[in-house]
């Protein structure tokens, strides 16, 4: 991987998140509600799991002394030391292979990719070794590992820093894939991923790192775990279902708020897990609303939306549809750098609204 590009990438993000880097870990808003950024939620998940299980280690480039390229591992090196939070030389293939081997020998590594774009250097270790070894060895060799890092588009970092790998990793039997949206999602899913005996890919989103969400008392507990494979209804509604994951949930919620003004009640389903997909939740929602729009930031072809639609065609939910399903996705192009080109390539709440109107045949 090109170091110069990485450093540039890092400096961009340090600037973007300057405030939260220096900010407080937890900000109390009201006695019962606590606001927390997604970054801090991820940090507390790793922190709690490092404390809970001596076998858990965090490994990657810049995760230790530098506190992580995106400061997700802030303070963890200071707290747990170099045997638990491990900086590595530059080589995704190298540190991923090492993390896989450490898992095979009984540790529980959390392997950070500075961005999932760089995980392509290591995808053989993720797919051919981590995902398949348990099967190939007939259960003799398990690989309890988490691959995590920012996924999908950020801001102004062009094609090689902006790809969404949801479809890529979700394609692979033997991998579980989670994709958190909010701070509760981030904490609960990452903790579940670390505790899971299977390899889990945790697709985070760089833009969401700095966003604050309320955390319930339950979510603040060190026992808070969200079951992998369960979607969440973020907003109930009866006229149309909007399904998204990660940052796309935000576009769904924005569109739902806008549509409410027109009397349209949207049900927003946050997938939380991409593999195994919560088919039951999807089917139940369609049975209720009879309309569906899928929203994702990745490319359309063979994407998350495509898979959801195929699953519906194969289930009884198909008979409940009153209109074709519409997909909102990133444009089918590598993401450009220039702001005008970039913003036009990515989905927004407006695109979702347009698709809702099409589905419901309203203006």
């Amino acid at each position: 991987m090109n170091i110069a590009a990485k450093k540039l990438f890092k400096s961009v993000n340090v600037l973007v998140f300057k405030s939260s880097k220096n900010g407080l870990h937890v900000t109390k808003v009201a006695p019962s509600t606590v606001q927390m950024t997604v970054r801090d939620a991820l940090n507390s998940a790793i922190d709690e799991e490092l404390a809970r299980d001596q076998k858990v280690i965090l490994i990657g480039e810049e995760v230790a002394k530098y506190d992580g390229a995106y400061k997700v591992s802030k303070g963890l090196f200071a707290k747990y030391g170099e045997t638990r939070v491990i900086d590595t030389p530059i080589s995704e293939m190298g540190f991923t292979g090492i993390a896989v081997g450490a898992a095979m020998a009984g540790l529980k590594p959390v392997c950070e990719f500075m961005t999932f774009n760089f995980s392509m250097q290591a995808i053989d270790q993720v797919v051919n070794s981590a995902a398949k070894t348990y099967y190939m060895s007939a259960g003799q060799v398990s690989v309890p590992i988490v691959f995590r890092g920012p996924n999908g588009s950020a801001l102004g970092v062009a094609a090689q820093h902006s790809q969404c790998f949801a479809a890529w990793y979700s394609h692979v039997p033997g991998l579980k894939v989670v994709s958190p949206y909010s701070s509760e999602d981030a904490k609960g899913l990452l903790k579940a991923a670390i505790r899971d005996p299977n390899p889990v890919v945790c697709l985070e989103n760089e833009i969401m790192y700095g966003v604050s969400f309320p955390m319930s008392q339950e979510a603040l507990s060190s026992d808070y775990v969200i079951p992998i494979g369960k979607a969440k209804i973020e907003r109930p509604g009866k006229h149309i279902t909007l399904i998204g994951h990660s940052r796309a949930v935000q576009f769904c919620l924005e569109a739902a708020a806008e549509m409410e003004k027109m009397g349209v009640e949207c049900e927003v389903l946050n997938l939380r897990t991409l593999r195994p997909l919560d088919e039951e939740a999807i089917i139940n929602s369609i049975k209720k609303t009879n309309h569906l729009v899928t929203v994702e930031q990745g490319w359309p072809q063979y994407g998350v939306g495509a898979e959801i639609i195929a699953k519906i065609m194969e289930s009884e939910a198909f008979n409940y549809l009153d209109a074709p399903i519409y997909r909102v996705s990133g444009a089918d192009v590598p993401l450009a750098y220039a702001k005008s080109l970039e913003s036009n390539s990515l989905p927004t709440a407006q695109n979702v609204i347009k698709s809702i109107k099409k589905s419901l045949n309203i203006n």
Partner: protein
Amino acid sequence: MASLKLIQLWNKKSTSFYRSLFRRNLTSATSISDKASFPGYKGEFSTELQFIYPENNSQIQCYRVMNRKGNIIDPSHEPQFDHKTLLNMYTYMNLLAKFDIIMYEAQRQGRISFYMQNHGETAAQIGSAAALDSQDLIYAQYRESGVLMYRGFTIQQFCDQIYGNSNSSCKGKQMPVHYGSKEFNFVTISSPLATQIPQAVGSAYAYKRKQNGLCVITYFGEGAASEGDAHAAMNFASVFDVPLIFFCRNNGYAISTPVKEQYRGDGIAARGPAYGIVTIRVDGNDLFAVYNATRAARQIAIKESRPVLIEAMTYRLGHHSTSDDSTAYRSVDEINLWEKGDNPMNRFRNYLFRKGILNEKIEEELTEEHRKMIMESITKSERTKNMKPTEMFLDVFDRPSQSLLKQQNEFLDHLKQNKEHYPLDTYEKL
């Protein structure tokens, strides 16, 4: 203009600087007393504009204990094995040689789909295996059957794995020769070359943390050493100071690619010191040299907690696999020259004959016993039922997901409705 000025200034400054040095140290014009202290280099400066031509460096020598005829060169290096152990080692070499021949034929007869021979490299396998603790973790490539055999994996287990039947260690899920055994601390073999090398580093890191007094060994060929994984693994192992033995079998060919097209420089061993790794090159056809080197490497790896690289020089006498005919890229004469002139089994055999541990009678008995054992194992493997088909849905995850269970149910329904079209009696009962 400005830059020219700077250069002039620099020249002026440096000239007087060197002059002052020269005054202080008239005897050495090239060595400078103040030392370099860059983050990446601490040492002497030099005024000589000198490139390193690797071909001018002396080659790393090849350690051996026995010559080609099986005579001990320096008796102080002869390992002190009792007769039983020595005969035992030969027994494994003989058994593996016989197994190779029969399985190769079995593939040609269409009984099995694929096989990979070990012919020519059994001294490297048995010698290194004997030097390890049985609890040391092994990450093999695919030409280390002797290592697993030495650990105790039986011919029946080898056969069952190759046939992929219901007794196979991998339950029919992994292709032939890609053995794996938790019992014998042998990680299931991975097909993409060299992926096992960084994994071995990771496991060695876990062992270092455990302080369990064990090490990890990873085997690979000189061809696999060209993969990026090999570089990353050696660099990381060195940086992490892990108890790991890199065991490179340099057998001359990566399928058809000869070493001279695989790399430049002094082989794989020359890379070790560049990574800061303790390194040795050994005669891989000399069982004792391999044993001594691996045993010493193990001591260094564990006591000093650092990786060691062994490059075992050998020659692949067999084809790469049953999918290969190596006479397409090397002459029969070349193969025969090695077969007769530097065959690791013959070398050890000569040694044992001279010692009176082995004679033609014992050898004949052994060979016959092995042939019988292998044929019986093959017959048993062929008669063993296939793994029940529902097994295919297991071990994807620790517990089957809903969608896997759904697939399994669909599959069972289909079988129920169409059972007359399937040879269900050849499978284990559902």
